[in-house]
C-alpha cells in the first residue's frame, strides 16, 4: 500500500511531495492508476524520492506505471539533469545498457504461419544463440570490435546483416555519436567478444506474434500493421559488454562521489557532475555499449529473417519482412526540452522507460515525423505486447518518455516455487503459444503471473496521454534464453 506521503494528482498520477524526505530538490511523480497503485512497493517509492535529491535534477523525479524496485534508481524511472550543475549516474541507466526492443512487420498472416509455427520456433531457436553460457556466431577481431562500438547497427549493416533502410527505423539511427572505445576496459572487450549476436537470458526474448487488435487504424496503416498480420519482436541489449561497462564505471563513480562531495541517500546512486572527466568518460563508454546493443539487435533480426525465408520458401519481397522501429529503454541521452518555456539541453536518464517523441520532432525520421515515434512495449510471454506512438503531452510532462514493459510482481524464486510441478511450456501450448527455452527455470520465472498485466500498464500511459495505443500483439511462438 502506498504511504500517506503520496497524493493523488489525477486518475493516472501520484505525487511525492518535496518535503517527504530531506534533500529532495523536486517532487516525485509516479504514473499509476488505482489498480496499479495497489502493487506499488514501498522501496520503489523511496527510490523515486531518493533520485529527487540528486544535484541538478529538473522538473520532477518521474516513474512510469511499470515501476519496481531497482538498484538506486527504480526501474521505470525517468530523471533529467541540467548539463551545467547536474550529474550523470550509471545507476540511472542500469547494467544492461541499451536494453531495448525492435519490431518487424511481415506480409504473412496468422493462418499462414500457424501450421509451421513449431518448425519456425525450432529453426530460430537453433540459429540464434540464447541462454546461460551461450556463444555467438560472430567472432570479433580487435579492429572489428572498435568499429562496431563506433558505428552500432551501421556496422552490422556494413557486414551484410540487414539493409541501410533499417537504420532510419532505429532510435538514434542505430548509432549514437560520441562513443569512445579507448575508454573500454579489457574485461568489457573480453566479455563482449563472443556475445555479439546473442539473445541472453532472463526476460530477454524473441517472439513471433500476430496483430490481434487495432486501436488506431490510420496510425497502424502508416506503420504497415494490419489485423492478423505476423510480427516479430526482439528484446535484448548489450549483453556482458554493457554489464561490464556499468560495473567498471560504478567503481569510478563511487570514487567521484567522494571527490566531488556529493551526498547520496543510497550508494547505488553513485554519480559524477556532468562536466567532470569521470562523467564524460562514462557517457562515452555507455554510448559504445549502446552501439553494441544496436548491432546485436540488428544481427539477430537478420538471422530471424533468414529463418522465415527458409521455412516459408519465399522471396524476401513476398515475405515483406522489414523493421518497424527499434527503441532503447535503458539509456542516458542529451536532448533538448522546454523547461519553464525555455529550451534547455538536458541529460535524460531512462531506466526501464521508453522515449516517446511526438509528431513533428526533428529527431524522428521523415517517415514517422507525421505520426510520432513508434513506442514498443513488450508484455509477458503469455499475454500481449503493444505498439503505441509518442505524444506532445509526453514532451511536456515526462521529457518525452513512457513505460517499457509489464514490470514484475513476483520474485523469481516465488515464481519458480509457484511453477513447481507444472509444465509451463504445456500450459502455454494449450493457449496456442509454442515456447522454447534454453534454461529449465527460465520459463517458470517468466510465467505470466510473475508480471503485472501489461494491459493495465499501457492503459495508464494511454489515459495519461503520454503515448497512445495503436495495436495489440499476441504471442504465437516464444524463444527465451
Amino acid at each position, binding site marked *: 500500500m502506498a504511504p500517506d506521503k503520496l497524493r493523488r494528482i489525477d486518475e493516472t498520477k501520484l505525487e511525492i511531495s518535496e518535503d517527504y524526505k530531506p534533500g529532495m530538490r523536486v517532487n516525485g511523480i509516479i504514473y499509476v492508476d488505482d489498480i496499479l497503485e495497489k502493487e506499488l512497493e514501498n522501496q520503489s517509492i523511496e527510490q523515486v524520492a531518493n533520485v529527487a535529491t540528486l544535484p541538478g535534477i529538473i522538473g520532477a523525479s518521474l516513474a512510469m506505471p511499470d515501476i519496481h524496485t531497482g538498484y538506486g534508481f527504480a526501474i521505470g524511472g525517468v530523471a533529467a539533469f541540467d548539463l551545467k550543475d547536474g550529474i550523470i549516474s550509471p545507476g540511472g541507466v542500469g547494467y544492461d545498457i541499451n536494453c531495448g526492443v525492435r519490431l518487424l512487420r511481415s506480409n504473412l498472416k496468422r493462418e499462414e504461419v500457424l501450421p509451421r509455427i513449431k518448425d519456425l520456433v525450432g529453426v530460430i531457436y537453433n540459429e540464434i544463440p540464447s541462454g546461460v553460457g551461450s556463444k555467438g556466431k560472430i567472432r570479433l577481431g580487435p579492429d572489428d570490435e572498435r568499429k562496431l562500438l563506433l558505428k552500432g547497427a551501421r556496422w552490422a549493416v556494413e557486414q551484410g546483416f540487414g539493409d541501410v533502410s533499417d537504420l532510419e527505423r532505429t532510435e538514434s539511427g542505430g548509432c549514437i555519436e560520441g562513443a569512445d572505445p579507448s575508454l573500454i576496459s579489457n574485461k568489457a572487450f573480453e566479455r563482449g567478444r563472443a556475445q555479439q549476436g546473442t539473445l541472453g537470458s532472463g526476460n530477454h526474448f524473441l517472439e513471433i506474434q500476430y496483430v490481434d487488435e487495432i486501436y488506431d487504424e490510420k496510425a497502424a496503416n502508416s506503420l504497415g500493421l494490419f489485423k492478423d498480420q505476423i510480427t516479430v519482436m526482439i528484446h535484448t541489449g548489450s549483453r556482458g559488454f554493457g554489464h561490464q561497462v556499468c*560495473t567498471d564505471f560504478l567503481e569510478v563513480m563511487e570514487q567521484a562521489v567522494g571527490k566531488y562531495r556529493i551526498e547520496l541517500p543510497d550508494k*547505488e546512486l553513485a554519480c559524477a557532475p556532468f562536466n567532470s572527466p569521470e562523467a564524460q568518460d562514462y557517457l562515452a563508454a555507455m554510448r559504445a555499449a549502446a552501439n553494441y546493443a544496436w548491432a546485436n539487435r540488428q544481427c539477430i533480426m537478420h538471422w530471424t529473417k533468414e529463418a522465415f525465408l527458409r521455412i516459408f520458401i519465399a522471396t524476401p519481397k513476398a515475405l515483406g519482412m522489414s523493421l518497424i522501429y527499434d527503441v532503447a529503454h535503458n539509456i542516458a541521452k542529451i536532448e533538448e526540452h522546454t523547461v519553464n518555456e525555455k529550451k534547455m539541453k538536458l541529460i535524460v536518464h531512462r531506466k526501464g522507460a521508453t522515449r516517446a517523441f511526438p509528431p513533428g520532432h526533428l529527431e524522428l525520421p521523415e517517415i514517422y515525423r507525421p505520426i510520432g515515434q513508434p513506442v514498443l512495449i513488450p508484455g509477458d510471454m503469455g499475454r500481449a505486447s503493444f505498439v503505441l506512438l509518442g505524444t506532445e503531452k509526453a514532451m511536456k510532462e515526462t521529457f518525452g518518455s513512457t513505460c517499457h514493459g509489464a514490470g514484475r510482481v513476483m520474485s523469481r524464486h516465488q515464481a519458480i516455487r509457484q511453477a513447481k510441478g507444472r509444465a509451463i511450456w504445456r500450459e502455454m501450448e494449450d493457449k496456442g503459444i509454442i515456447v522454447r527455452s534454453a534454461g529449465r527455470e527460465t520459463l517458470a520465472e517468466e510465467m505470466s503471473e510473475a508480471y503485472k498485466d501489461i494491459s493495465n500498464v499501457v492503459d495508464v500511459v494511454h489515459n495519461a496521454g503520454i503515448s497512445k495505443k495503436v495495436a495489440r500483439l499476441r504471442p504465437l511462438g516464444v524463444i527465451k534464453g
Partner: protein
Amino acid sequence: MKAFDVLDISGDVGIMAYGKNLEDAFRNAAVGMYSLITDLDAIEEKRSIDISVESHSMEGLLVAWLNDLIFHFDAYGFIGKRIDIQEMGDNKIKTMVTGEDFDAERHEGKLLIKAATYHQLKIEKKDDIWEIDVIFDI
C-alpha cells in the same frame, strides 16, 4: 551450519552466506552465487584460476571479487566449485578458484548473472557467525 540461503527479492536474487569467519562467509557467498548459475554437483574440479582484487573497503572487496568471478564466467565460461582463500586483508583478497568450463551439453544453465551490487549489501558478525547478504542483477 548452513553455507548459504537464497535471498528472494522482487526483480532479482541474492545470497545470504554464513561463515565462522569472514573467509568462510566470502567463500560461501561465491559458491552460493555459482549455484545460481548452474547445478554445482555436475561441475568437476578440472582447472584453477587465480583471482586477486584490491579495494578500499570490505564491501568494495566483496563486490569487486564477486564481479571478477562473474567476469571469468561470462567471458570464458569458467565455473568455480572450490574456493581457496590464500590471503585476506582489509583491502586485498587473493584466491584460487577451482572448477571447469561451462558446457551446455552437460551443465544446466540457470540464471545469467550480470553483476554483484551494493543494493542492501551487508557484511556483519552476529553471535560469532559472519553473515553476508549480497544481491545480484540478473
